[in-house]
């Protein structure tokens, strides 16, 4: 039993370490994004919108198919702002990664 508990503790420790490093990397990454976007010409409303990164070769369509349809045979469409709330709920419920959640939101709102 002690061995099993050690495994669980080690896993949790590993995940906390990953999270800490990920948080640091994420912060530095977002500052770079802001500077890169300064030259773009968009409407005032769009400029306020948050920019996110997606991995290479990662489409919103794939993110939807890989995650949502694992449990949902049908996803009824709702408005963009309701969809944003529901996607945040599903990010927690289904342990969807942050990048995938953003991509799914894009897929469902476009």
């Amino acid at each position, binding site marked *: 039993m002690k061995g099993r508990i050690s495994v669980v503790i080690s896993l949790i420790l590993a995940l906390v370490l990953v*999270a800490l490093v990920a948080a640091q990397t994420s912060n530095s990454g977002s500052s770079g*994004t802001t500077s890169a976007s300064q030259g773009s010409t968009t409407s005032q409303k769009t400029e306020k919108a948050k920019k996110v990164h997606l991995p290479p070769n990662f489409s919103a369509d794939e993110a939807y198919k890989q995650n949502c*349809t694992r449990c949902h045979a049908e996803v*009824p*469409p709702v408005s963009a702002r309701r969809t944003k709330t529901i996607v945040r709920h599903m990010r927690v419920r289904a*342990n969807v*990664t942050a990048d995938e959640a953003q991509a799914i939101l894009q897929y469902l709102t476009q």
Partner: protein
Amino acid sequence: MIKYFGFSVFVLLLASAAIAQDGPQYKQPEGGVPVLTGFVGFGTTFQSGQQQLSPTISPIVLVPFGEKWLVESELEVEGNYTHMTNQPWDHSWDKGFEYAQIDYLANRYVTLVGGRFLTPFGIFNERLHPGWVRNLQTAPYITAFEMSDSNGGMLRGAIPMGSFLNINYAGFFSAAVDNSWEGSTRAAGERVGFFFPAARLEVGTSFQRQLQDQHVNTFGVDAIWQSSRMPLDVRAEYARNATVGSGYWVEGAYRMRKSPFWKPFMRRSQAEVRFEQFFTPSARNRDGGSGDMELPDSNAKRVFAGWSYWIRPDVRSNFSYGREFIDSGDHNVWTVGLTYRFAFPLMGGRK
């Protein structure tokens, strides 16, 4: 302990490599609004000598705060109207909070959860239990000891390892609460899932230790696979508890989108089949019993074949036929059900 630390460093290095990647940028809409969602359902079950009607309403309130917070709660009210041969109708209503939790999205990989939440064990409890999501109305045997609620704290999230693998995890601690609406057992546990996007395969393991009374462990393994060539989903789960029993279920669902005939009907239809088995514990462990869990008294197996038809994307009808093989007598089980999934804005958010 050194080898576990080595494993931690290995995971850390993999994550760092994955995080270093970058890609195209997208712009997201602003401002999530509070939402009232959930479903209303009506199910009927017919089996030898018994008929059961089960109306259910399950409202969920989602209230986002800023970019990192979400308050969410689900109340489930389920009626059970049962008629046994030569007896009058009996009825009862079960009601309680499935969850009432506060989520804090600490960063891209970690979410902290506090309050009452669905216990993260296997795939059915957290992901498939709502009537409008599950393929077949009848829940598998083993969900009787898997499905539970916890009161306490939880750490969860997902970590992408490049495009090859996503690891998702949840670890929790629950306190003992003796309350008919919000009861829970003192327990701790975890689930770790490994999702391979290219193969569309997720394999997960679950562990839970009850920290009161008998201090028993429950183990579980689950898998979900989606074919990329055809609209086919396969889900399976195994769970074992020394005092309650063990069992598994395997379920397949085929969306009939590609049917060459009756296209208007078939493109909204899905065929489903499930096989499951339950094994009672060995005699030396049986003293613990299964309490008020709805589990068979003897080894049992059950097979179901079902059909779902979406009248609209938010209105689903379903029908299933099953046969249960059990010591008390093999018998047929028929179910018919209808669910309506709703999502209304509580303020703003019409567009």
